[in-house]
C-alpha cells in the first residue's frame, strides 16, 4: 500500500503548476530564447532589417581581442571581489562569534549593507573616492597617494572591487556566522585541552569544519561578481577608464545598448548563459557530495 495520496484529477496538477510555469516561461524562457534567436541575426544600423548569419556573431567574438581582455578583466574582478568579501566576512564572523555584549546589535548593523541597492552602493563609493570632492581622495592625498580612478585603470578596478565586495560581505557574514555557531563548543574546548592555541584551533578545527559553507559561498560570490555587479560598475566607472573595468556583463550592455550591435550582445549573453549553467552544475555536484567530510 502506497501512503502517498493520489488524485484522479488529470487537470488539477497542471492547473496548480500553471502560475509558476507561466512566470518562468514569460520572464525567463522567452527572453532567453529571444537572446538565442538574436545571436544568430545581424541588424542594419537603423534596425529596419535583420539578416540570419548563423554563427558569425560568435565567430567574430572568438576572434576579438577586446572580448578576451574583457574575460581577463572579469576574472580579476571576480577573484578580487570573492577573496576580499569572503576574507572580510570570515574575519567579522569570527569576531562576532566572540562578542557577548550587544551581539544582536552588532550583527544587525553588519547585515545592513545587504539592503543597499547596487547602484546606490556604487554611487556611495564613487563619491567617497571622487577625484575632486571625495573624502577618501583627500585622505589619500595626505599620505602622498594620488587617487583618480577616472584616469587610472588599476585604481578604477580596485574601487569597483571594494564597492562590490562591501555589498556582499553581509551575505557571507551571515553564512559564516551560522557555520561557526553550528560547530559544537565542546570541539573547540577539546582542542584547547589538546594543546592547540587559538590560531591552531582555527586552522585545524574551525576552518575545515567551515569548508562546506566556504565552498558554497565561493560559488555564490563568483556568480555574484560575474553577473550581478552591473549596477555598481555602471554607477562607478561605466566600464572605464578605457575598458579597464569592462566585465563580460558590462560589455553585453555596452555593445548592445551603447554600440547597438544587438547580435554580438545577444551572442555574449548566450555565452554567459552557458557559464552560469556550468557553475550551477558544479555547485550542485559538490554540495551534494559535501566537501571534506
Amino acid at each position, binding site marked *: 500500500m502506497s501512503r502517498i495520496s493520489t488524485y484522479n484529477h488529470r487537470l488539477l496538477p497542471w492547473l496548480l503548476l500553471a502560475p509558476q510555469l507561466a512566470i518562468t516561461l514569460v520572464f525567463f524562457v522567452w527572453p532567453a530564447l529571444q537572446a538565442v534567436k538574436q545571436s544568430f541575426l545581424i541588424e542594419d544600423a537603423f534596425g529596419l532589417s535583420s539578416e540570419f548569419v548563423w554563427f558569425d556573431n560568435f565567430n567574430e567574438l572568438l576572434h576579438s581581442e577586446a572580448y578576451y581582455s574583457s574575460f581577463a578583466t572579469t576574472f580579476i574582478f571576480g577573484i578580487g571581489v570573492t577573496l576580499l568579501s569572503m576574507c572580510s566576512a570570515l574575519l567579522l564572523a569570527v569576531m562576532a562569534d566572540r562578542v557577548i555584549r550587544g551581539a544582536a546589535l552588532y550583527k544587525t548593523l553588519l547585515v545592513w549593507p545587504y539592503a543597499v541597492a547596487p547602484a546606490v552602493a556604487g554611487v556611495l563609493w564613487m563619491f567617497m573616492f571622487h577625484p575632486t570632492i571625495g573624502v577618501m581622495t583627500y585622505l589619500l592625498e595626505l599620505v602622498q597617494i594620488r587617487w583618480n580612478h577616472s584616469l587610472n585603470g588599476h585604481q578604477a578596478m580596485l574601487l569597483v572591487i571594494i564597492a562590490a565586495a562591501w555589498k556582499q560581505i553581509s551575505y557571507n557574514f551571515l553564512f559564516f556566522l551560522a557555520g561557526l555557531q553550528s560547530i*559544537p563548543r*565542546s*570541539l573547540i*574546548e*577539546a*582542542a*584547547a*585541552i*589538546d*594543546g*592547540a*592555541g587559538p590560531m*591552531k584551533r582555527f586552522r*585545524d*578545527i574551525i576552518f*575545515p*569544519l567551515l569548508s562546506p559553507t566556504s565552498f558554497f559561498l565561493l560559488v555564490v560570490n563568483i556568480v555574484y561578481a560575474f553577473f550581478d555587479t552591473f549596477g555598481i560598475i555602471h554607477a562607478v566607472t561605466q566600464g572605464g577608464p578605457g575598458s579597464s573595468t569592462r566585465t563580460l556583463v558590462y560589455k553585453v550592455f555596452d555593445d548592445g545598448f551603447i554600440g547597438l550591435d544587438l547580435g554580438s550582445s545577444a551572442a555574449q549573453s548566450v555565452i554567459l548563459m552557458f557559464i552560469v549553467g556550468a557553475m550551477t552544475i558544479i555547485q550542485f555536484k559538490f554540495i551534494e557530495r559535501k566537501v*571534506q*567530510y
Partner: protein
Amino acid sequence: MATLNLKNLKKTYANGHQAIHGVDLDVREGELIVMVGPSGCGKSTLLRMIAGLEAITEGTLEIDQRRVNDLEPAERDIAMVFQNYALYPHMNVYNNMAYGLKNRGVDKAEIDRLVRQTAAILELDALLERKPGQLSGGQRQRVAMGRAIVRNPKVFLFDEPLSNLDAKLRVQMRIEIKRLQRKLGITSVYVTHDQVEAMTLADRLVVMNGGVAEQIGTPMDIYNRPQTPFVAGFIGSPAMNFIQAQLHEGALTLGDQTITLANPPDFNGAVVVGLRPEHMHRKPDYAHQLMLHIDLLEPLGADTLVYGRIGGSGDELVVRLNREFRNLDNQAILPLYFDCDELHLFCAKSQQRIN
C-alpha cells in the same frame, strides 16, 4: 599519578549568579572521585573549572601541589572526555588521538607508538582509519577515552560520558571505565547525574546540591550515613522514604504509632525520619513494626515495589519486597518490620543528621 586539591573553590558569573559556593576536596593519587547531583547543581561547572574551561572566581586549585588557577587548559596536563565525545569529525580515529600529542611536539615515531598502543588497549586497532561519523556510539566513546589516555595526563575528567549510550552499553562501558582507571591508576574526576553509575564507579562520592558539596565520602558511607535528607534521597533506588515525626525523650511518634528507640539521640522536637525501601521486611525478626495501607504494587521481576501510607500520617512510602509477595488475598493493611538502627533521623529545621 597526581593529587588534586580544591580549596574553597567558588564561581560567580558576570550576571551575579553564584554557581559554586566554596567546595573543598582533596583527591588522592589514583583515586576516582564521582561528583553526582541533579541537573543545575554545579557539578559540571566545577569540572569545567578544574579543566580550565571556566574561570575560577575565588579559591585555589592545585594539581600535584602546584597552583593552576591561571593556567590554560592545555598547561594543566589534564584530559577530558565530553558528554558528546567532541571528536573532530574531519579527522580519522588515528588523528583524533594523535592531535594532542602533535600539538605538544612529540616526535612522529613516538606518536605512532603511543597511538597504536592505546588503540590496542581499547580494541580500536581495526578502526584507526575511520572517521567518527562511521563509528557506533560505543566506539566513539572508546575513541574519546583513547584520546584522553594516549597523552598519559595527570588527571582525567569525565563529563557524563555515558549519558548518550543505551542502557546496556552504558553498563558495559561503566565496567570498562572502572577497569581501565584501576589499571592506569590515573587520578580521575567523573561527573554524572546517575546515582547507580556514581555508586559503582566511585572510590569516593561528592554529592552536590545547589553549588555546595553536601557530603563527601565512600559510596557505602554515604549510603549508610547520609548527612542530609537531600543526600539520603538522592543515593539509593528507589529513593529513601521520609516520614515527618516527633521525637520526645527517645520516643518517636510516626503517625498514630510510637516506638521507643534503642539508642536515642539527644534531641527533642520535629524530625524527618528516613527509612530505605529495602529495610522494611515481612518477617517479624525485627524489633519494630508499622502498618502499611497498600495503594499499588509494581512487580519488577526480582523484587516487587509496594506503595502505600502508614496510618495517621500522610507520607507516602515505598517498600521493596521479595517477588514472592503478590498480595493475592488483596489485604489492605500490611504489617512490616524494621530495625531502629536502620532509621535515619534528621532535624526538621536544620536538615542535618542527628543520630
